[in-house]
């Protein structure tokens, strides 16, 4: 079963991605906009994590489900800045793996997800980390996410393996459950904190 929401109001018309004034406010000091790309095997829970984050919902039994491939969500931080995440889903099927660079190009954040009940998905996550280290932009913020943390009894990837791997690769690690909402907001808040602050971001337009 899928995850999702029975509230369709936000996707039936437009996603909250495109609006006219967006570029005007995109990069001022208080309001960051960042492209976040999701990578990981099909089935690890990428869509569910995003839906949980964007809509606060997870309903594997609902028949009415929404799986958008582009979603955006703005969060407010304590220092009264806001971060708008523009979340790019990528196709997880193997035959599209070679296309990934087209998606992570220009991304400020990569969230690499695996399923703690699936060692193969953990191996795949490591593949993505290596690929991004080689070909991603050097200042990309990477997060390694072990999802489905609610399935303790089926766990096959020890948390320590994720911690160790992330530490070795200088990336942020967290275990989440889209089902129980555990650590979902924490994931995005932590990413937001790690983003280069506006002072470090080059000015968006050279004034002439």
């Amino acid at each position: 079963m899928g995850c999702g929401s029975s509230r369709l109001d936000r996707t039936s018309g437009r996603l909250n991605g495109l609006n006219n004034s967006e570029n005007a406010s995109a990069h001022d000091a208080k309001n960051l906009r960042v492209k976040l790309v999701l990578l990981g095997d099909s089935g690890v829970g990428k869509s569910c994590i995003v839906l949980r984050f964007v809509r606060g919902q997870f309903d594997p039994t609902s028949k009415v489900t929404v799986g958008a491939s582009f979603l955006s969500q703005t969060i407010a931080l304590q220092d009264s800045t806001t971060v708008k995440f523009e979340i790019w889903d990528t196709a997880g099927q193997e035959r599209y793996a070679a296309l990934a660079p087209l998606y992570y190009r220009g991304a400020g954040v990569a969230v690499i997800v695996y399923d703690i009940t699936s060692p193969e998905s953990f191996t795949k996550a490591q593949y993505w980390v290596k690929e991004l280290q080689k070909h991603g932009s050097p200042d990309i913020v990477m997060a390694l996410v072990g999802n489905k943390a609610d399935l303790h009894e089926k766990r096959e990837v020890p948390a320590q393996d994720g911690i160790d791997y992330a530490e070795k690769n200088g990336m942020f690690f967290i275990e989440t459950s889209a089902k129980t909402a555990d650590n979902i907001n924490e994931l995005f808040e932590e990413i937001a904190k790690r983003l280069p602050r506006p002072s470090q971001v080059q000015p968006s337009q050279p004034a002439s």
Partner: protein
Amino acid sequence: MEANQSVTFYDFLDRMRNPASLDLVRSIKSFIVSFSFYPANPENDGKKVQEFFLTMETAIRDHPLWAGATDEEIDSAMEGLEKYVMTKLFSRTFASLPEDVKFDREISEKICLLQAFLRPEHLDIPVALQNETSWLLAEKELQKINAFKAPREKLLCIINCCKVINNLLLNASMSGNHVPGGADDFLPVIIYVTIKANPPQLHSNLKFIQLYRRQAKLISEAAYYLTNVVSAKSFIVDLNAKSLSIEEIEFEESMQAARLANKATLVENPPTTFNTEVFRTDPGPSKFLDEKETKLKGGSKYPYMDAEAGELTVGDVEKLLSLYKDVVTRYTTLCSKVRHLSISKTDCPATSEGTSSLATELEETCLDANGKKE
């Protein structure tokens, strides 16, 4: 918002005719003219155009005519500017290199072969997403792409196509018989639709949008959709048996059969078709003429001078178009050089589109400005 777009453009032209905007008009004009001095170089040209847009945005923001304008109004002006500049520079910047023309043709030919046998199952598209009506709508949107010259409008074709697909995915999940897969669903469908549509000059259109759409607008959802179609193109270019759920032998046989079927069509219409050339590796700009055509060409740069309408086939359109562009580019260059000599006010023939009179008027305004300067 879309309905207002042509109003916006006329408003832009209107303001440009205001004497107060003479300085802006002069910058625009000299920028456009500067383009005819050098051979096409897409990467460079793209950078130059983007820099120009940014410079002009600042100039417009600081301009008395836009005093107190909202961000939306500035944005409208910039949309008008993009459309004006890129329509003027179109023949110079779109599919301007022989290798781009060649790549377009190769992609289109490969798609032709794939169309002969590719089924949704080959991309594992779930039955719930197999909706001919939606697909057709999406294809139509993509196929419109050459009806427009402005990068914004070309991009809109892509966005519209993707929105149709999004709706299809949404409906499928609402009907309850499909678990939504996000990009896992979206990408295969966009690939399949792209193959069914075989949009004209796919590579050149995508490249044109990427280079010349205002960078501030190539973000968010629009950028996501564009990336998906770029992905689809890339997937198609590299596509082989391993890319599909199909036996290698079946794939090869189907491709071969499609090639033969294509050849058969060629034999029926031999004279000036370029289809056979696709899988050759080396045709340079003029090598893709076959013998018959070379004979027609008779050493001339413009091989169709002696051709009769009845001899031409659809396959000639591409070549004719590129020759046409070549002629127009030369003529435009010649015009601007002549203008710079201040010999006469002879105007370049504008296109016969609806905007031409206004555009011509703008050109004349500029012409005056140029004249005074020299």
